[in-house]
């Protein structure tokens, strides 16, 4: 591969190196999939919350995540030729590139809080690194998404503080946070990922994923310290078998029941197209 051509701004993929174009497509795909699953789980938690206000909040959180999916899918369609219908309706679960913490039902409120405060934070860290991106088509959507994500993280951090303060909730929250962190580290990927390096070199992305992970850990350990929660940060993943497209180390995807429900497959007969 020759030296990367760095230009001020990309209106499209034209002029972008192959590694950069592929790395960006993979990243946006992974962001969209993570937001799709976040939207699903927030939606699932519109009932069963400890407070009614959290149920109302989850309606909004789900709504905005699914809106972000539509924004990202529009960019993927225009510049990578991806079919949004296929991305949701007909893709094998093993091709989903979401954070694996979202692969299974979110079993309790501590796991919900880790979803909101850790997984949503990871996606937002990536979005933030795309603010001011040299790839203009995504830059135009990022500010809007970040505006909404501020309220998501405000919500997640509020519940993180609340659950951490409970003697019966703190341990479970620490465990769920650790598992979410482990999954997020895999999703962000190895430091030597060619696509990620190309994105940073071309100023499409402001920071490497390894730096985003370090910053995210700083965010969370700072919050945990404030609330007196002992947080055991997992060591770096092995990245054995890591796939740049699915951002996974295995070929599993979200649970069948989740994909089935997400697609509305039980109501296939009534689909509009």
């Amino acid at each position: 591969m020759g030296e990367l051509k760095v230009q001020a701004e990309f209106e499209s993929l034209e002029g972008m190196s192959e590694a950069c174009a592929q790395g960006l497509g993979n990243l946006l795909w992974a962001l969209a999939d993570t937001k799709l699953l976040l939207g699903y789980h927030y939606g699932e938690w519109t009932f069963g919350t400890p407070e009614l206000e959290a149920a109302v909040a989850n309606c909004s959180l789900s709504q905005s995540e699914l809106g972000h999916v539509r924004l990202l899918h529009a960019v993927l369609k225009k510049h990578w030729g991806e079919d949004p219908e296929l991305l949701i309706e007909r893709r094998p679960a093993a091709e989903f590139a979401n954070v694996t913490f979202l692969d299974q039902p979110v079993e309790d409120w501590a796991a919900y809080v880790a979803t909101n405060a850790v997984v949503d934070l990871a996606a937002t860290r990536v979005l933030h690194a795309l603010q001011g991106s040299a790839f203009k088509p995504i830059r135009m959507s990022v500010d809007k998404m970040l505006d909404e994500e501020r309220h998501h993280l405000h919500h997640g951090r509020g519940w993180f503080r609340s659950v951490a303060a409970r003697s019966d909730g703190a341990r479970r929250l620490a465990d769920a946070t650790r598992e979410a962190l482990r999954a997020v580290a895999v999703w962000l990927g190895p430091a030597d990922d060619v696509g990620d390096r190309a994105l940073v070199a071309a100023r499409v992305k402001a920071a490497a994923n390894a730096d985003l992970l370090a910053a995210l850990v700083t965010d969370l350990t700072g919050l945990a310290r404030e609330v007196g929660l002992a947080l055991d940060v997992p060591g770096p993943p092995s990245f054995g078998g890591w796939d740049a497209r699915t951002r996974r180390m295995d070929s599993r995807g979200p649970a069948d029941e989740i994909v089935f429900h997400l697609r509305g497959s039980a109501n296939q007969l009534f689909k509009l197209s």
Partner: protein
Amino acid sequence: MSPPGVPCPFCGAADTVKEADFGTSLMVNRQYCRRCRTSFEAIKWGAPAGHLDLPEFLKPNEERDTSHG
């Protein structure tokens, strides 16, 4: 705590408190006026982000602790 100065649309008083971060739609939060004792919804986009509990990187520039990256 409520962001200061969200005026009540019914009586105009600024003596209002935020009751909830989310209302009946994505873009609003729920407020309560202590003068006329009415609940109302306020559009949150464009409101100062300073009242939100945020990690450092999402805080407004003027509130960031610049001693850390």
